[in-house]
Every structure is written in C-alpha cells, then in structure tokens.
C-alpha cells in the first residue's frame, strides 16, 4: 500500500461538520477492532482517492491471525472519530534479513495534520515492534512523496542497506 498524501477527494458539500481535534490529550492510540473497518476504509479512500476493500479485509484478518506474521493496525481516535491510522508488520528473513518491523501505511486526516498525530502513531507502532522483540524498523516509499518522506526522516529514519529495484514485465 502506498503512502498517498493527496487531499480529500470527497466533495465538501456532503462532509458533515465535526469538532476539530484541539486537545491532543483526548486523542488516543489503540489497536483497530473489526467495527473500525468502515471508518478506516473511508479515511483511506478520502485521503488517497482509492478504495482498497480487499486490502483492509486482509489486514484485519492478518491482525488476528496467529499463524501468519503479526500485522498491526493501530488507529488514532478522538471524539469517537478515527483521525489516523498506521499499518505495520513483523517480517522475518525477507530479503535475507532477521525479523524486523515494516511500516506499510500511515495516514492522518489532512485537516488535523501537524499536531503530532502521525508521530504518536509511529511511536506506538515502534513500541509494538519493540514489545515483539524486534529492534529495526523499515519502510519503502515513493521518492516524490516529500511530505511522508520528510516525516519518516524527522523520526530518525535514514537510508537502509537496501536498494529497491523493479522492472516492467512484457
């Protein structure tokens, strides 16, 4: 899943006014539960313009699975509304590397960015990774996604020992 940061595509006319999150103490980070699924999908679609029902269905299934690598879906909730999420997973021996945490997606509602919500989500995910015994966190992202790239840099992330390569299949 990519880290799209495009602004909302939902027409403003149909968006109901909601209290803006002023007090960050009221915001809490928790593991997503099944009933969060519609709100998460809606937020993701609002921000990226892409509906990914199958992806979210699988993410929720993986977050409960004991047989597959643990996937973490955490949400930032304030005033009963989901304002952001982060998705990550611990993968072992991918690319020959010992277990490490991967961040697959992070998203915060555009109107309430720059309040430290993404930082709290990232720190919570790192805490979950640490608790699971891993000491390295990685992510991959588009070179031209300056906003999210800068965010991860500000969290202390730097270029790792890999180079991502691709080719187009004929």
């Amino acid at each position, binding site marked *: 899943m990519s880290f799209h940061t495009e602004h909302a595509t939902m027409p403003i006319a149909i968006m109901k006014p909601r209290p803006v999150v002023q007090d960050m103490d009221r915001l809490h980070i928790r593991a997503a539960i099944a009933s969060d699924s519609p709100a998460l999908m809606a937020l993701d679609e609002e921000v990226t313009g892409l509906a990914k029902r199958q992806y979210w269905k699988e993410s929720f299934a993986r977050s409960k699975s004991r047989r597959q690598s643990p996937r973490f879906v955490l949400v930032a909730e304030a005033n009963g509304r989901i304002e952001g999420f982060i998705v990550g997973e611990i993968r072992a021996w991918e690319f020959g590397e010992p277990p490490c945490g991967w961040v697959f997606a992070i998203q915060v509602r555009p109107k309430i960015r720059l309040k430290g919500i993404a930082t709290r989500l990232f720190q919570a995910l790192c805490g979950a990774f640490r608790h699971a015994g891993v000491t390295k966190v990685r992510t991959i992202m588009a*070179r031209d996604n300056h906003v999210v790239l800068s965010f991860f840099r500000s969290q202390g992330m730097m270029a790792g020992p890999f180079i991502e390569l691709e080719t187009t299949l004929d």
Partner: protein
Amino acid sequence: MKLQKASSFALYAVLELAANPEHHLSGTEIADKYGISAHHLAKVLRDLGRAGIVEAERGVGGGYRLSANPKRLTLLDVIQIFEPVGPESSPNGDSRSATDAATALRVVLDELDDHTVATFRSITISTMLKLMARRPWAHSARASRSSRRAASRR
C-alpha cells in the same frame, strides 16, 4: 558526492543559527567555530539573506538570525542557492550524443541524481539538528571498535 564550499558553509551557518534561535551570531563567530574563511562565509550569508533564509541586524548585539522555519527549510532549499542539484547539474557526457551508450549512461546517472534530490528534499534543518543531537555515528564507531577488540581477542 561532494558539495561546493559555498553550500557547505551555508549549511553550517543555517544549522548554527537554527541551533541558537535566541541569539544573533556574527559571521566571524560561525567561521571561527567551523574553521572556515570569514570572508567567504560573509558572501554566503549575503546570498542566504537575499534568499530570505537569514536576517542581519546591525549594531551592538547584532548579527545574523534564521528567518526561515527550520521545520520547513530543507537541505535542498539551501544547496540549490549555490549549486544546481539533480539531472540538470551534471552534463553526463556530451548531451548532443544520441548513441545508445550515452543514453544508457544518462539513464543511470539520472537515477543517482533523482535519489540525491529526494534525499536533500526530505531532510529539514530540524531533522538535521535531531541527527546532530542523536549522533548515530558515535554509536557505530563504538560498535566497530568493540567488534575489532573482540576479533583481536580471538
């Protein structure tokens, strides 16, 4: 990769001013700390002033202060004032040459340039200050020293 002297001096100055937001610093103070030419730094600071990144105040207690937002100002913003960065910066051989070899070489060099631009653009002055405070290089130096010691004991 190597930065031109002016770009490095500009980054030293910007980082120094960002680390001391309450103080005005003179060019000489910054030059002395980094062991660089005060004359050259004065020219660099003038360019940074024209770009709206620093402000100069004359008189007693005067000096330079950062006027840009360090959380928004990136390494690319500063470096681009003094030198071109990215595909336009490297002639990559003869641009008129349309041979397959020249084109393939340009594709590879453009790949490197794209990474350079993305890296400089993603690192803000605030992130640089955090990196300086964290000093991860000290940790890696300690780790390599202890692994050398362990290897010599074997």
